């Protein structure tokens, strides 16, 4: 089966611009998660979708970040306007079972804000 795919793999933008990251989870996985890793730091939780609903968005840094999952399939994460501290690798993960199942990660989208 196809894994979790993320696009773009790398994005370089200037401060104040907008970027949209996309994640396609594994087919049949209702649970979709966004995480972020800033260089040398831990992987931080951003939010969790169950189908199209936001189960937990406690990790979203501020209102410049907007995540959507219309139709419960792919998800987008928009950063508008981007700031320097938003640079990092954004990982998407999906799972079938949110109780005990492991997460399946995409390769990440590296965002560089200049």
């Amino acid at each position, binding site marked *: 089966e196809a*894994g*979790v795919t993320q696009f773009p793999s790398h994005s370089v933008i200037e401060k104040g611009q907008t970027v949209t990251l996309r994640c396609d989870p594994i087919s049949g996985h209702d649970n979709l*998660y966004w*995480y972020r890793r800033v260089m*040398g*730091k*831990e*992987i*931080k*939780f951003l939010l*969790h979708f169950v189908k199209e609903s936001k*189960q*937990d968005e*406690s*990790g979203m840094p501020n209102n410049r970040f907007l995540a959507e999952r219309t139709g419960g399939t792919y998800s987008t994460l928009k950063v508008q306007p981007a700031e320097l501290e938003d640079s990092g690798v954004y*990982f998407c*993960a999906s799972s079938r079972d*949110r*109780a*005990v199942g*492991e*997460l*399946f*990660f*995409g*390769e*990440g989208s590296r965002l560089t804000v200049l």
Partner: protein
Amino acid sequence: AQSVAQPEDQVNVAEGNPLTVKCTYSVSGNPYLFWYVQYPNRGLQFLLKYITGDNLVKGSYGFEAEFNKSQTSFHLKKPSALVSDSALYFCAVRVAPRAGGYQKVTFGIGTKLQVIP
């Protein structure tokens, strides 16, 4: 709040020697524990998990981990390291869910494993 500590930024081991990557955790309740590996320019891959039962769990690529409740640790081990094991290793924890409850997974900072030929 739950947390994970990986006290070593990097672990160096000679090929063929046993390896250990350390992890300690803190949760309010019973833990579910995970290890993930990230190879260069790749996403994280699941290695193994502890949910309940036997404290020694075996996973992919010959790795195993031992859950120690008294020391709140979940160290990753392998009897004989391979050069191809060189990668970034992440420990993760979540609290066991109560009925209808939900808790997110918390990751550590990662430990770089370097296996020297």
